[in-house]
């Protein structure tokens, strides 16, 4: 599927800002199921300093600095990708989850060692007793690891409600578990915490999802949003992505941008500004299918 995504983040300041420093993760990754045809970053005003780097996890980050007085700052990334479906994996055919934990512990293979580092607590994913208890119900002993993960995803989808007002970018896993509400970032963090509580390796994936309008209604431009989901490491298979917010496997309509241990590794836009008074923020995401 050929998709074009455009993602704009625009700040307006009540007073001139003298210096703004930012780091953005907006350039999609090349993966086995995603080819990046083009990707362009537009910045207004033009920054005095712009640097593109590849981070520890292989994501592409841009660091830039605006050093002149400005009242507006806009960051727009426009990318075109060609996505394909991941090869189907039969959940029941995967290893029992205890065996996966054991394989990670031994980490004899290079990719198992690479996966191991996604099995520990990270800045925004702290594993508490309640999380362990919640996860355990999906993972009775001997259950195939991917079957357990899909069951967990179904429970999160069924028992939690999507609520944009319930959380912020800093909401903790414990708060989400208690309130039973949140957004994609919260559900991804919760699923990751559950999987890690068992000793499994799970990572946070930041990206987009093409949304389709209800039947008979026009598609609204800019109504999409940045999205997040989870990938689980399955030995002999690799990383398997799934989307707890929508209770679906990750497929052709998902665009992968970056992955890390949690949101804090791959926040799409973060920065520090000097001056500027109060600010208003506008975010627009638009995913369209081409041809």
């Amino acid at each position, binding site marked *: 599927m050929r998709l074009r995504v455009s993602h704009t983040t625009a700040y307006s300041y009540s007073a001139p800002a003298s*210096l703004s*420093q*930012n*780091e953005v993760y907006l350039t999609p990754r090349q993966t086995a199921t995603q080819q990046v045809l083009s990707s362009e970053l537009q910045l207004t005003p033009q920054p*005095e*300093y712009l*640097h593109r780097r590849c*981070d*520890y*996890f292989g994501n592409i980050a841009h*660091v830039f*600095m605006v*050093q002149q007085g400005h009242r507006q700052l806009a960051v727009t990334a426009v990318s075109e990708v060609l996505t394909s479906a991941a090869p189907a994996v039969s959940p029941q055919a995967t290893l029992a989850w205890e065996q996966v934990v054991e394989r990670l*512990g031994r*980490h004899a293979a290079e990719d198992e*060692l690479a996966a*191991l*580092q996604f099995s*520990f*607590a990270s800045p925004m994913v702290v594993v508490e*007793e309640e999380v362990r208890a919640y996860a355990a119900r999906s993972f009775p002993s001997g259950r195939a690891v991917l079957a357990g993960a899909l069951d967990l995803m179904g429970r999160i989808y069924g028992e939690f409600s999507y609520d944009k007002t319930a959380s912020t970018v*800093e909401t903790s896993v414990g708060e989400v578990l208690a309130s039973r509400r949140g957004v994609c970032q919260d559900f991804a963090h919760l699923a990751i915490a559950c999987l890690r509580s068992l000793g499994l390796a799970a990572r946070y994936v930041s990206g987009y999802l093409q949304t389709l309008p209800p039947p008979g209604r026009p598609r609204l431009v800019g109504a999409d949003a940045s999205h997040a989901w989870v990938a689980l490491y399955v030995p002999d298979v690799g990383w398997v992505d799934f989307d707890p917010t929508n209770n679906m496997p990750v497929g052709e309509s998902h665009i992968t941008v970056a992955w890390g241990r949690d949101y*804090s590794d791959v926040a799409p836009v*973060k*920065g*520090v500004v*000097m001056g500027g008074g109060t600010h208003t923020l506008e975010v627009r995401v638009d995913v369209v299918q081409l041809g």
Partner: protein
Amino acid sequence: METFAQYDVGGFYDELIAADGIPRPGAQLLVDKIESLPPGDLAMRQRAAERLLLKMGITFNVYGGEEGTEKIFPFDIIPRIVPATDWRQIEAGLKQRIFALNEFLQDIYNDKKILKDGVIPKDLIYSSRTYRRECEGFTPPRRIWCHVTGTDLVRDGDGRFYVLEDNLRCPSGVSYVLENRQVLKRTFPQVFEASKVRPVDDYPSKLLEMLEYLAPDHVQAPTIGVLTPGIYNSAYFEHSFLSQQMGVELVEGQDLVVNDGHVHMLTTKGLKRVDVLYRRIDDDFVDPLVFRPDSLLGVPGLIAAYKAGRIAMANAPGTGIADDKVVYAYVPQIIRYYTGEEPILANVPTYICGDDEDRSYVLDHLDQLVVKAANESGGYGMLVGPHATPEQRRAFAEKIKAEPRNYMAQPTLSLSRVPTIVGDRIEGRHVDLRPYVLFGREIYVQPGGLTRVALTRGSLVVNSSQGGGSKDTWVLEEGR
């Protein structure tokens, strides 16, 4: 006041008095002097020293305390004396250890040979909270990571020195070493002169020399700053003291700005470029763009400027992985791996709670062990088993079970003691020793260090944040 006639070493190794009650070589002059003082004179000297410290403004802060932020650091005027033979071993051992730890840091963030060769378990590094992924593939200026370290040593009942922990992030306390010496020179001027004590006061100039060595090659007269979190930090006194002694700028995060890829200081005459920072802010807070976004103590963009070689920093970010208290258990192997030599200074035997066998031993023997969290310092997050209540031990056992990787345990050592003034008596109190090491053109070990003393009878916790005090440390010249 009672003096040494009634002094009881109590079955411990005493740094001044041998088991038979005779002063150790080097301590005779001091003991004779104290014995010869008229009644009340020793107490008077102690009070005079305390007044002097207060006047000099030598204070520290305790987090969570309610009696104001600044207190004087308790000080005892009876010095600890280290004979030249002991010091020779400590100095050689520290040079070897710091050299090896620096090699380890360079390797762990680059080639990872030590992991590939299976000397250290890989998961130990990847699971550490202080392993900084941002430092991958980086080599700091002059290939030095741990420029300033303070290694905590203890002497056990057998008279041997052991390394208790390494502090490779922002070790503090050296200012007390310098100030304690100033005070004690006035307390026992004649004994001090006659005992041939090695000087400690060239530390600030050695520190400055090291910082200048780090400056980029093309910079002739580098601008150097001490970066402090500000007046609420427990070591703020030291930050201002060292910057003043070195004659360099004392700056907070808000005084610095990254512009054109370089770090600048805001001055009344405009921006001034900074070439070297002696930063006393933890990794987590140094740059909100890279580490903790909720902190404004640091400087946004500092890490990018650092990695581009525009500024040098001491210590380098990422050194915390080498003083992770579980990685500590592997330092003897680290030394052998990088130097091919046997460690000169021994580690305290350590049980790693991430290891199943070690953990069950630890949980069964909590009443005999000291348990520490991997990434805490200052005596926070630890359990001294023999002195804890059953309740505290049970609570701690739960913490260990929940996160075994994060804990290690050591046997309770019989720390050596030094005679200390307690009311109108002299009693033995347990001590440790933190010498300071600078890594610049070469490795320099300050002859002395901070002797911390647990002022409560029987206590083994010497941290200043937990009610410890300090003493002057006299390293004697060779031939004494």
